[in-house]
């Protein structure tokens, strides 16, 4: 027929039009919908919130850390009974300010109902409000209270986790803020302007030079590269490429091997070891312990990274002692200690154990999961020995616990404020059967890690083990 060819062309145009909708709609649904539906203009969000009683968030022992209360008119209030204690872990859920941390990450579970069952049971009767799932976290409320008490209001963070399972037992950051909505709206302006940055979750997002705690990674790298016999003559100071690297108090240790250099935290040794290892190996040291990697976690973590291109000799020496442009978070350093404790295997940190529906069904459950194999188990065992020596008779003696073999490493990190160093301690205990790994930091404390942070770590470990 005369016109069929052209009619077929029009049919092809029609096919393309329909195909374009097909592609567009699929694309929209897969890639755009999630962002769009979280818009504040989406009234479904509020509607859903109002129709479901938000689930409770518990610690591992069943203590409620966040719960929703209903008033007579059916309005909900989110209550955080411990005020500011968990503001950087659980976050807040406030109509005016949105959601953060666990309240955000597990929003779907907290609002999830056993839909079909409840509809059959209640129909659409709104007065019978359905309940979202409860969230059971891995946190330990008692331990968090201990951490808070021990920090005595000083700025910093305490991270404690179970090295075998990756369960986070304590994630304490100070300063913090009261996440209850009334308090939030009253204080928001002040909090936002406060120079102590109370909105910064220091444990997971605070960036600090790891200082001497990074020597764990450097020592492990040395062992992995056949430098187990490395020794130096320590005169208290060493000059590298025109710059002096000194021990704390310029103390001279004489002829020392790797273990003693580690135990006394000799900067003279580790600055030279850094130069000896070179840029590639130092980068590898940080990489194997994920010191400069973003940690996958239930709540947001800092996007730390390796900040060097090419490295000069002083750069190598600085990174050897955990200084220079090396930056990481307390959570990262707690995982370093935890991986040594766990025979070199770093477990993925977890904040949530399970989500349980209102009728008692576990709808979500997490399992221990390895994040990376940092070092072989013999290297981990060797570093454990070093860390034990450090606590037994080195810089970390303040972390000793009677009757328990504690492993640890202190750190004192210089920063932009001279004389106001950050104090660090990372460690784990007991040595043979590690149950807890910790990282403690006090920022701008001016004191050494051994004097400021080791006692905090000891108290936390002791509270957990006993």
């Amino acid at each position: 027929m005369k016109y069929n060819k052209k009619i077929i062309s029009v049919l092809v145009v029609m096919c393309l039009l329909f195909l374009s909708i097909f592609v567009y709609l699929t694309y929209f649904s897969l890639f755009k919908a999630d962002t769009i539906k979280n818009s504040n203009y989406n009234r479904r969000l509020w509607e859903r919130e109002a129709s479901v009683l938000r689930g409770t968030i518990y610690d591992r022992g069943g203590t409620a850390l966040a719960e929703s209360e209903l008033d007579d008119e059916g309005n909900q209030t989110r209550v955080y009974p411990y005020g500011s204690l968990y503001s950087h872990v659980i976050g807040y859920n406030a109509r005016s300010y949105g959601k953060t941390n666990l309240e955000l990450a597990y929003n779907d579970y907290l609002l999830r109902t056993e839909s079909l069952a409840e509809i059959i049971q209640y129909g659409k009767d709104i007065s019978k409000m359905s309940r979202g799932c409860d969230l059971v976290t891995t946190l330990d409320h008692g331990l968090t209270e201990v951490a808070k008490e021990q920090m005595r209001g000083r700025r910093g963070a305490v991270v404690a986790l179970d090295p075998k399972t990756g369960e986070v037992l304590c994630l304490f950051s100070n300063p913090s803020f009261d996440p209850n909505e009334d308090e939030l709206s009253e204080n928001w302006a002040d909090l936002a302007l406060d120079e102590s940055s109370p909105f910064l979750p220091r444990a997971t997002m605070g960036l600090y030079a790891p200082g001497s705690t990074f020597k764990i990674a450097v020592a492990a790298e040395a062992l992995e590269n056949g430098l187990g016999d490395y020794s130096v003559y320590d005169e208290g100071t060493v000059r590298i490429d025109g710059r002096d690297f000194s021990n704390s108090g310029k103390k001279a240790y004489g002829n020392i091997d790797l273990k003693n250099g580690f135990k006394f935290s000799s900067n003279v040794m580790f600055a030279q070891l850094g130069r000896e290892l070179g840029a590639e190996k130092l980068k590898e040291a940080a990489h194997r312990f994920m010191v400069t990697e973003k940690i996958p976690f239930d709540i947001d973590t800092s996007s730390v990274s390796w900040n060097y291109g090419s490295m000069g000799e002083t750069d190598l020496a600085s990174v050897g002692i955990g200084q220079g442009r090396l930056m990481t978070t307390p959570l990262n350093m707690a995982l370093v200690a935890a991986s040594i404790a766990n025979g070199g295997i770093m477990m993925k940190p977890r904040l949530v154990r399970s989500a349980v529906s209102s009728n008692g069904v576990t709808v979500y459950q997490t399992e221990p999961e390895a994040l990376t194999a940092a070092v072989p188990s013999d290297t981990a065992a060797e570093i454990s020995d070093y860390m034990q020596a450090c606590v037994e008779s080195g810089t970390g003696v303040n972390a000793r616990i009677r009757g328990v073999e504690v492993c640890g490493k202190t750190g004192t990190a210089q920063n932009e404020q001279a004389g106001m160093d950050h104090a660090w301690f990372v460690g784990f205990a007991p040595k043979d059967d590690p149950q807890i790994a910790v990282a403690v930091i006090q920022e701008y404390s001016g004191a050494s890690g051994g004097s400021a942070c080791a006692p905090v770590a000891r108290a936390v470990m002791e509270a957990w083990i006993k």
Partner: protein
Amino acid sequence: MYSETSSVKPLIYIMLLNLVGAALISIHYGGVNLEAIILTGAICLVSIISYAVVSLAELGDAYIYLIISVLGSVGGIMQTRIKPEYGIRQLKWFLVGTLCYFAAMLLYRLLNKWLHKLVPLYFGISVALFVATQLFGKTSHGSLNWIVIGSLSFQPSELIRIFFVLSLAAVFTAPVPDKYKDRLRLKPQHIRLLVASFITLVNVGFLILQREWGITLLFFAAYFFFLYVYGASRYYLLLNCFAAVGVGLFGAMRVSHIKVRIDTWLHPFADASAKGYQITQSLFAIGEGGMAGRGIGEGSVYFIPEVHSDFIFSAICEEMGVVGGLAILMLYFVLVYRGFKIALACTNAYNKAVAFGLSFILGLQTFIIIGGVTKMIPLTGITLPFVSYGGSSMLTTFAACGILQAISGNKEEITDEIQ
């Protein structure tokens, strides 16, 4: 050629669809609406009878009515879910529409020999309807498009679509009377282009006056592709293109009504509580539905403005998911494809042109409204055939498909164009 369609399977699916829909809606409202059940049963029964009649009496393509009844069922389910009264009225319209379908089919068959001679009549009715709308019409959402008689309201442009296609088909395929040829001293082909352009200009002019942008686009595109198929020169096609782009650009810059549409298309969230309200609410619905949908009765479709008419597709996506929405889209595509196939197989030149035009309009209308509510193209208010609420859309689209049915069953072989 259509004899492969005598299976009963499709009927079972249609009944199943209605059954599931009725069950879900009963759960949603927590009770059984007797009237809805009776009407649903009636639709199933009518579908069976229509299918039997079409296949046993060999009236042509038996799929057309089947597809329509699936679309109509989905429309009925969604309307009932949105508001039971709408659903019941929609189901009644569906039954009346079926009558229109067979009436249009019979009329078209009976009058087939004269239809191409009635262009002045089509044109006259169209203009009369436009003028009536202009004088007595009611404005809705910025468009002047309703005539209200008592309790019945009626959208004339829906009916004019069909006359428009019948006219263009006649202009391009019927012989040009000698008296015009002599008087105008022009080639027949040029006379055709002139007449077609004149008819289109008048129609589009009225539509622009009544601010029916979606239907304006629909008419112009139909005219343009008629020109393309029926051999207008490349220059004339380009000229029309430039004219359309010029008018479009002028509208986009100077007509606030169009400007707003384009702005809200590009930046829907800039004014999401007012101008962008419709489209953002539609996007939320589609987004919340995700791939699988929230379930019939489980969505919050009452947040979508005009959900029962222009935005019914968003509600379908929210409750049946994008997968459900795409399934509906495929149904339209199959329907349009069958229409084109009928046009291709048809040996009568006039009928071929009619089938082509009606299928094209059906397909493009579906594209314009679905593309609009999903923000793929700027939104223009137009109904989704068989699913959107409304009698005039339902009846006229049924009539259009009835004509397709008639053409598919036409065994008389009138020869090719008489030049």
